[in-house]
Each structure stands twice: as structure tokens, then as C-alpha cells.
């Protein structure tokens, strides 16, 4: 049984079917990449998984649990974290505050203990910080702890967003175009990090990506979408040589 499964998901915006009867499964420990031309429905798929969009049909399973009706703010509690295509960071807060928010799901204090900042609230802050520091070390963010997001270059912001997702201690990580806007070197670093996240932290990754050389390097399996339908799915080699995929991308 797969860790994560999407069954017959259909999303319709008016008459447009952004996703049409899409089904796939992701195994534990895999790096699963979704590719496809613009408007193929990739981001829609992510937004369905994080419950921002309501699917018109179909179900989603995570660890054999149907999450199609779970509240959006409870998704991260189950162990699913995500990043966004166009950065959604808290821009007027420091990197540290952004990362600490990644620990929000572990909050145990109530408003009264926070107003008086009781020892338990202080202890909780220390615990949060310990985990955040682990992630900071992992992604080399030591220099930026107290910097406002406003003042950071784009590459670092992308990194902070990945770090924030990791702070939630996820089992499944959804990365929406992690390499877009990065320089070559940053993309190479990112490749190593993604591999490390998989092997060292044991986190399963679903990724949307356009950079094909990057995709082929890191992915275990690839799913190609076009016009909301699955074109092909399989190992990187198979996708590369798939006639339908070539047709969709190159229009042969």
C-alpha cells in the first residue's frame, strides 16, 4: 500500500476541467516528480492535496486515511508540508520567526499561559528553537536568522520556505517548483539537499518541476500531466522516451 494515494481526482472550474480523473500513488521514501506544460493542472493538484481547492470528484488517501474532507489547517498536523510556487513567506518577520511558525502545529500552550509567559511557554519556545536550529544547520541559513524576509535575495527566500516546511517535521513534502528562479549553483545545491531530505530525514517528496535535467537527476519516478490528464508515469528513462510526452512538450 502506498504512503500517499490520489484516486480519480477531478477538479472543474466552471466548464474547464483542470484535473480529469487523475490517480496515482507515491511510496514511502520516494521522490516523485510531476511535470507538464503550463496549465497542465500541476499546481491545482497541489492545492487539492493541501485542501485549498475542493475536488469535484475523487478521494485522497494519506497513510490509509481519507483526507478528502480534512480541514486545510489540519493537513500539516497529519505530516504533509508544502512550499509555494510564488513564495508565500511572512515578509515582515525575521527568518527565525518564519521558521518558528513551522512548529505551530506542536503548540501546547493556551492563551492564558502565553499572556503570563509561564515557564511552560518559555520551555516550549526552547524546544521549538532546538528543532529550528537543526533545520538552519541542515540548510545553511545561519547567517540569516535575524534578517527580515524583505531584505533577502530570492534564492535565500526559496531556501527559507523549504526550511519552514521542514520545521513541521513532515512525512510528506510537497515542493512546488523548488528550482524556479535559482541560479545554476543554487539548483545543484538544491539537488543535494533534496536527496539528503530523502535519505537522511526519510521524508517522501512530491515535487513539481520544469528543469528536466534536474528532474532526471533527483526523481525516482515521474508523472507527466497535460490538460488535466495523465500522459504517462514511470521511471525517468521511460518518461524521457515516451512519445506522448515528447508530443506535449515539443509538439512533434
Amino acid at each position: 500500500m502506498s504512503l500517499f494515494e490520489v484516486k480519480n481526482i477531478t477538479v472543474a472550474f466552471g466548464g474547464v476541467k483542470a484535473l480529469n480523473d487523475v490517480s496515482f500513488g507515491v511510496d514511502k521514501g520516494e521522490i516523485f516528480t510531476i511535470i507538464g506544460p503550463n496549465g497542465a493542472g500541476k499546481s491545482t493538484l497541489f492545492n487539492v492535496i493541501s485542501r485549498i481547492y475542493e475536488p469535484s470528484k475523487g478521494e485522497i488517501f494519506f497513510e490509509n486515511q481519507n483526507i478528502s474532507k480534512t480541514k486545510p489547517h489540519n493537513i500539516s498536523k497529519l505530516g504533509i508540508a508544502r512550499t509555494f510556487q510564488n513564495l508565500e513567506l511572512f515578509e515582515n518577520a525575521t527568518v527565525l520567526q518564519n521558521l518558528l511558525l513551522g512548529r505551530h502545529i506542536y503548540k501546547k500552550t493556551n492563551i492564558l499561559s502565553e499572556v503570563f509567559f509561564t515557564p511552560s511557554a518559555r520551555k516550549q519556545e526552547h524546544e521549538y528553537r532546538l528543532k529550528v536550529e537543526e533545520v538552519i544547520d541542515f540548510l545553511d541559513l545561519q547567517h540569516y536568522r535575524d534578517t527580515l524576509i524583505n531584505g533577502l535575495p530570492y534564492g535565500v527566500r526559496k531556501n527559507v520556505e523549504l526550511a519552514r516546511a521542514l520545521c513541521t517535521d513532515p512525512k510528506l513534502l510537497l515542493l512546488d517548483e523548488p528550482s524556479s528562479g535559482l541560479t545554476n549553483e543554487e539548483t545543484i545545491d538544491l539537488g543535494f539537499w533534496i536527496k539528503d531530505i530523502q535519505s537522511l530525514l526519510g521524508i517522501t517528496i512530491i515535487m513539481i518541476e520544469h528543469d528536466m535535467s534536474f528532474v532526471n537527476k533527483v526523481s525516482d519516478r515521474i508523472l507527466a500531466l497535460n490538460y488535466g490528464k495523465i500522459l504517462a508515469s514511470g521511471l525517468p528513462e521511460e518518461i524521457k522516451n515516451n512519445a506522448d510526452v515528447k508530443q506535449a512538450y515539443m509538439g512533434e
Partner: protein
Amino acid sequence: MRFIFKTKYSQDINIAKHNGDRFWYSLLILIMVALPLVLDDFYLGEISYICILSIAGIGLMILSGYTGLASLGHAAFLGVGAYTHAFLLTNGIPFYASIPIVIIVSFLVGAAIGIPILRLTGMYLAIATLALGFIAEHVFIKWEHFTGGNRGLPVPQPEFLGMSFYDSVFFYYVCLVFLIAAMFAAINILRSPTGRAFVAIRDSEIAAQSLGVNLGLYKALSFAISGAFTGLAGALLAHYIGYLAPDIFNIFLSLTLLLLIVVGGMGSLHGTVFGAIFVGFLPQLIAICRDYLPSSIGSQPGLEPMLFGLILVFFILYEPLGIYGRWMKIKLFFELFPTYKRQTFKKQKVFTKSDRV
């Protein structure tokens, strides 16, 4: 320039970041405590009023400055606090019991109003809160059993700790203590997960949600906490005014609070005090200026609202971060002297969304 060498996580959690902070804030509190020695009753009254405005400002700042939700009807909460307090005192509840009840009542009123109203965003929320202000004013007029309606409601000035609220020195100390307590409460909320969740909602709702922040719950909580602070300020305001009438809690008071946080500096607790000083002294300043202006201008009745509006516009245009923002710049100037560059704070064109405060 001060460099802080951090060796403990506590250093990031503590309120005072270094000994300089401790020294200056202790000095400030000492000066505030010593003020009755040098100032007469009139000025003490004015400063008490500024303390009350600051507490209300903290309430609105948490809602607007930190959670990013506009409110044009916050005088309603001042009214709820003031009337509840006056009502309780009239019925013989002592001061020390009445204040916690006021805080709880305004918290609950805030939550009850917040839950339905916060489904709206932006302009619609502003209009809904504006309507809330008008509705509250009418409730204060019509609910005569509770508020005395248009006849008004005298506020009893009970004994507390053996002192009377008629004593302006004592009242000043009460306001000061409540301001300091409110400030600590607000700082504590803001440095714990709830406060961070508020900031998260302000900067990106969708990311906050994906990190497990229950948007509806936290927005309502923000409204409730904001209501609690403002309600407390209302209770003190009741003592300050001495006689409650519904038209005190009108739209103009709400706008004064809004002016307070914008002029003080959105998203900073320092700003609430700066803003309160500004708003508290502005009418006096205008009154003084009237004497020096030519009588055709000086005797115009609408001078005050016009100047309020004008100042608000000027701040939004030229100093969006308010007096606190200006203060930060001055501080940086001296820290970096003589290498300060004017361009440091020059507004840059940005292509990712960032100017959302």
C-alpha cells in the same frame, strides 16, 4: 554600534535584549513614577488619558498592526468596557473584581462579533466594523436599563486600596500600572506562538493555513484579545470621564484610535505609546495654535477634524511606519554615525509582494 554576542536561546526570547534596554526602560519607569512630584493635576490628568489611549491602542494594534485586520469601530469596545464597568460599580461590585469581569466580557464580546464578521476581508471588513461602531452607539442609547440611554450614566468613583479615584495622583498611578501590565501582556502574546500566528495571518493567509494555523479561530482570537485590551481601556476611561453618554463612543473616537496606531507606527508596540502621546496632546496643541492664528482660521469649528485627517494623510504618504519608524531611523543615524547613508531607508521598487504592513 552595539553587537550582541548570543550564547543562549533565552537571549532571543527575553523581552530586554541587552543591558542597555534594561537601563533605559527602568529609567523611563522611574521617571514616570516620579512625575507627580513635578507635575500639577492638569498634566497628570492628561498623561493618565494618554495611558488609557495607549492601552486602547495596544488593542487595536494587535488587531490591525499585527493581524492585519482593519477596524473602524473600535470605540464600541471602549464603550462595552466603560458601560460594563460603570454598571458593575453601580451595583456594588468592588473595583478589583470589576476590572477582570470587564476584561472577560469584552473578550467574549470581541469573540462573538469576531466570529461572523471576520469572514469578510479588506474593504468589506472595514465597512462591517464601521457599521459595528454605529450599531454599538445605538445599543448604548436604546438599552436604557443598562446604560441609562441619552440621560447618561454617572460612574461611581469607589475607594480602592483606601484611595479615591478623585485623587488625580492615585488615578495616574492606576493608569500607569495598567499600561505597564497591558504592555507586558501584549509583548508576551506577541513573542509566543499565538502572536506569531497573528503575524503569519497578516503576511500570508495561505501559508499560515498550510502551517496549521486555524484562520477562523485565530482571527476571532485576535478580535477578542483586541476587544479585551480596549475594554480595559474603556473601564479606565469611564473613571476619567466620570459621566458616560452614548455619543462619547462615536465614529470620531474610533478614528482617533486608528490615527493613533497609524501615526505611532503600524506593527510596533512602541508606536502605540508614541501615537497616544501625539493624539492626546494634539487637541491641546490645536487649542494653543488657535490663539495665534488669524481669527478667520482660528475660530473655524472644523479645524480639529481637518487637521487630524491631514496629519493621517501626511503620515501615510511620507512616513508609513509612523513616529516609531522615524525614531528607528534617528537611532540608526547615531549608531552608524558618521557613515549613515540616506539611501538605507529609501523606498525601493520591489517586485515580490512585501509592502503589506
